[in-house]
């Protein structure tokens, strides 16, 4: 497989997280390679968001290890993960609507002027930040010229563009996108998907968490399927149908992660079986 030759960026082995009697992460493994968009899918309650939180420092796992660029890391907070070069784009955008684009791009990482104006008076280098913000937006071919515009004057897709540009600007290792299209319409979703591709093409691997199968199949290079707290499969969207993948996700198909080629053969019967209840329901 081609992924074997590529360099792993973020890996996890045997992650476990328990909340009382509930095991949210049950020995999960994870691999993200350079230059790829890895989609993470799983039913509600499968524990995929817990795993992602462990990878981004929002949850501290009880067991297991996480390796960034081959080195073990122990994030105690999202801020530590961010310092290590992992940025997250959130579903609800996490932008300040009344503030301008440049301010949003540099939120929490403002740059001060050089000299005493910056060091003594702590004055912001507004022009410098605007120029850099414009450059970051150009890198992703987002067609907004004025960085002084308030974010609320932008369309939903453009707002998410600002959030994507911010994470791409600061991420040194990878970007996590948590349902980036969930709040958007069809056209704006497509714009954001295009942006995600550009982020990858500009050299940052992307973890995409999404419930939207067509979106996942449109842009993912590989799909990590999460079920019952662990990874049950990693599939190539070009080799498997959406139907098969949903089957794995819901447990209708048992996928052998060590011998992924077998899934195609196995998929026929259970997938057909899983379809039956649906068609019956439709017949009523």
């Amino acid at each position, binding site marked *: 497989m081609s992924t074997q030759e590529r360099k792993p960026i973020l890996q996890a082995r045997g992650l476990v997280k328990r909340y009382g009697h509930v095991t949210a992460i049950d020995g999960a493994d994870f691999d993200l390679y350079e230059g790829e968009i890895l989609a993470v899918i799983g039913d509600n309650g499968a524990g995929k968001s817990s795993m992602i939180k462990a990878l981004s420092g929002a949850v501290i796992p009880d067991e297991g290890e996480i390796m960034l660029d081959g080195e073990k890391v122990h994030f105690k907070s*999202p*801020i530590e993960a*961010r310092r290590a070069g992992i940025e*997250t784009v*959130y579903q*609800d*955008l*996490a*932008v*300040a*609507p*009344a*503030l301008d684009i440049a*301010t949003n791009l540099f*939120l*929490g*990482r*403002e740059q*001060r002027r050089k000299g005493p104006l910056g060091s003594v*008076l*702590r*004055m*912001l280098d*507004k022009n410098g930040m605007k120029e850099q913000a414009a450059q970051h937006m150009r890198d992703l*071919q*987002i*067609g*907004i*010229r*004025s960085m*002084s*515009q*308030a974010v*609320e*004057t932008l*369309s939903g*897709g*453009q707002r998410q*563009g600002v959030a994507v540009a911010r994470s791409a600007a600061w991420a040194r290792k990878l970007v996590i996108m948590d349902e980036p299209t969930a709040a958007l319409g069809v*056209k704006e979703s*497509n*714009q954001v998907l*295009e*942006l995600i591709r550009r982020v990858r093409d500009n050299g940052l691997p992307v973890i995409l968490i999404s419930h939207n199968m067509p979106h996942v199949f449109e842009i993912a290079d590989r799909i990590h399927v999460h079920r019952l707290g662990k990874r049950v499969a990693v599939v190539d969207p070009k080799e498997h149908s959406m139907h098969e993948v949903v089957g794995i996700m819901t447990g209708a198909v048992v996928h052998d992660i060590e011998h992924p080629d077998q899934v195609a053969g196995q998929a026929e019967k259970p997938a057909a079986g899983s379809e039956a209840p649906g068609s019956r329901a439709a017949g009523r």
Partner: protein
Amino acid sequence: MTQPQTEPAPPGGQAPPPGAAQERRRALDAERLAQLGPLIALVLVCAFFATQSDRFLTGSNFSLVFQQVMVIGTLAIGQTIIILTAGIDLSCGVVMAFGSIVMTKMAVDNNVPPVLAILLGILACVGFGFVNGGFVTALGLPPFIVTLGTYNIAFALTHIYSNDETISTLPTAMTKLGEGFSVGGTQVTYGSLVCLALFIGAWFALSQTAWGRHVYTLGDNSEAARLMGISVRRKLLMVYVIAGAFYGVAALLLVSRTNVGDPNAGVTENLEAITAVVLGGTSLFGGRGTVIGTLIGALIIGVLRNGLVLMGVASIYQVLITGILVILAVSVDQLARRRAR
């Protein structure tokens, strides 16, 4: 930049939906109206009084207006910072009154050196800011409720501590800011200059520093602030503490202007400070507004009071007109923003 510019979007890029440019222009208009509206109102009010009274447009009269405005102006700076974070402080005026009683009583009854007494008074106000901010951040209580409580506490403490007596015969160091110098026959008090300096300092901190950007973000989208690694609680607590320091300075300005420690002070100033902020175009929902607008708002209140006195109108009409103006200001703001959306 007067108009947002959009370059032709590349294939598959972020093409603005049709009409987006129009929407944006309207949004900008609303923003500009929010900023220019208060200034236009101030000019109109001044123009009106200029036609009604010969004495209005004189240097000495404006000096008087500014001396009256400096107390609520300084209070309103603290109030502005809090309102920008989507909070409110109903206790500002009575906290100031408490601070003024602390500093005057310490100096007069306890023979504390005036400068130390002043610092203790300011510290008392900072303490109230800490209590307000502490309950808002640690317990997540609504600022409205917390400051309603501290309003009563500060009011009661002021009267208990002062025995309901006005404190007079203050040391001269304490009333120094009420003095001033003359520029071409117009009296300029040191207190007015202190107030102006505080406005400039607050403007700088809010508009030119990262701290200021974070204050706006707290009111605009505090979740975004948290996700971007800003320590929301600590910042918010500091906002209330800093506001308390402004109330402390306002207490000193009040004392220097009236030459007494008055336990009954602060009640009208309390709501006037909020009124100044709102008239100045700052949104009560947080995240929008400027401290310069607040200065204009405070001047509108001061000019109204002064002009109506010059016209011989009973002072209760000033309260009436201020009330109408507040509702008008909030309505215009709300309508403009709704149209923009």
